[in-house]
């Protein structure tokens, strides 16, 4: 059932940053591997990556993958969009820099490794469906109650509530803005639904959250050049 558009379509002008390993349950499961090579110790700073401009895709878009990629790994995220330049803010002030919220589908080639930056894995064209619109922060009562679900072909594949982030949103903003400025319009994906979901050519993928709406994409076979 199509949701009635409540807000204008989202347009992303800024840089999109993502946070891996920010799901409390996931970190607990990985504790032993973090002690081993190549990691040697658990992460200290937020584990960040970039979803560059070529990955951005509007709601309802089609993601093309070549035949040599049999499966991709989708994850859903709640994204925050910055209202103004944000640098070295305290946890207490952090949320006042948030313009609003939207949904994202962070698509990857499956990998177990967190050692090297996930460029080949996460930066293919269209690998970040994001939208469908920006819900102003003032329209969200308690952001901690926001919860996103991932669906592949209408089957629930896991969810993530902002309450279950290892680093809550305000601490992410404070810790990251300590060394880099979020500019007005930049986006932060606050955490990912649990790993392990798979999708393939023909799959429909959705991120769904009460209060934020529903973000869809489909996977198609890339035409060979």
């Amino acid at each position: 059932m199509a949701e009635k558009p409540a807000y204008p379509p989202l347009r992303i002008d800024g840089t999109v940053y993502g946070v891996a390993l920010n799901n409390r349950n996931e970190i607990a499961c990985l504790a032993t591997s973090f002690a081993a090579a190549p990691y040697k110790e658990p992460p200290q700073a937020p584990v960040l990556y970039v979803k560059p401009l070529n990955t951005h895709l509007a709601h309802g878009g089609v993601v093309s993958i070549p035949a040599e990629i049999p499966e991709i790994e989708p994850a859903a995220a709640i994204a925050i969009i910055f209202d103004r330049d944000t640098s070295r803010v305290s946890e207490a002030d952090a949320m006042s820099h948030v313009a609003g919220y939207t949904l994202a589908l962070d698509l990857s080639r499956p990998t177990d490794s967190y050692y090297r930056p996930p460029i080949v894995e996460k930066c293919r064209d269209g690998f970040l469906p994001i939208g469908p619109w920006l819900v102003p922060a003032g329209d969200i009562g308690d952001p901690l109650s926001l919860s996103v679900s991932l669906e592949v072909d209408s089957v629930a594949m896991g969810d993530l509530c902002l309450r279950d982030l290892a680093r809550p949103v305000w601490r992410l903003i404070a810790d990251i803005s300590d060394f880099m400025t979020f500019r007005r319009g930049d986006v932060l994906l606050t955490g990912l639904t649990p790993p392990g979901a798979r999708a393939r050519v023909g799959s429909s993928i959705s991120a769904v959250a009460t209060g934020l709406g529903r973000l869809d994409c489909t996977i198609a076979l890339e035409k060979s050049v």
Partner: protein
Amino acid sequence: MKRARIAWHGAIHAATVNDDLASFTLADGRNVPEAEVVWLPPVEPRTSFALGLNYADHAAELAFKAPDKPLIFLKGPNTFVGHKGFSRCPADVKQMHFECELVVVIGRQGKKIRPEQAYDHVAGYTVANDYALREYLENYYRPNLRVKNRDFCTPLGPWLVERDDVPDPMNLNLRSLVNGEVAQSGNTKDMVFDIPTLIAYISDFMTISSGDMILTGTPQGVRYLVPGDEVITEIDGIGSLSNRIIRA
């Protein structure tokens, strides 16, 4: 031709650098002396790729073997700063070092670009100093953003040299000087993955577009910097990029 972006008399201008390298010509023909301008990064950043361990000698120096495929990381627009800018060294950092790098600026969009056509997609070249702060290295998405995406810690410039003015970008001497003393030197011919290979590799899985940049990595030579140091990274035939370390 050398193209720069400058701030002058309260506005931002695209300018060409005159042959004296000490003045600019604006788009409307006015002539401006360097003393009156602030240098900005010559390219407004979009997607910026950077290479780790792309010179075998530097990889060995850091006790890594050269990678069998390019080690790529991305940088946000926040990290760039123009010629004669300042970069901050936090009080707890004792291991901040320079990295002189040839930057390839993309001029034409493409996907699945063949190596032999790679230079058709290049607009020109500039110089970067891709500072690293080793205390902040972690083994997650290494080199991590806390090391490589700090505000104003990637000087870029002074200008963009157009592609056809650089006959062989794969044979350029490059060096870094700290307070006038050479602290790093190498030649772009020693890259593990050369420019056509990098453009083909990246564009094989993602579209690259005009304004994208590739920072192609740095040769051996590590020296730790302290506030007050003047660092010059320069590449013969491209330019000489100056930066000063300040306390955060």
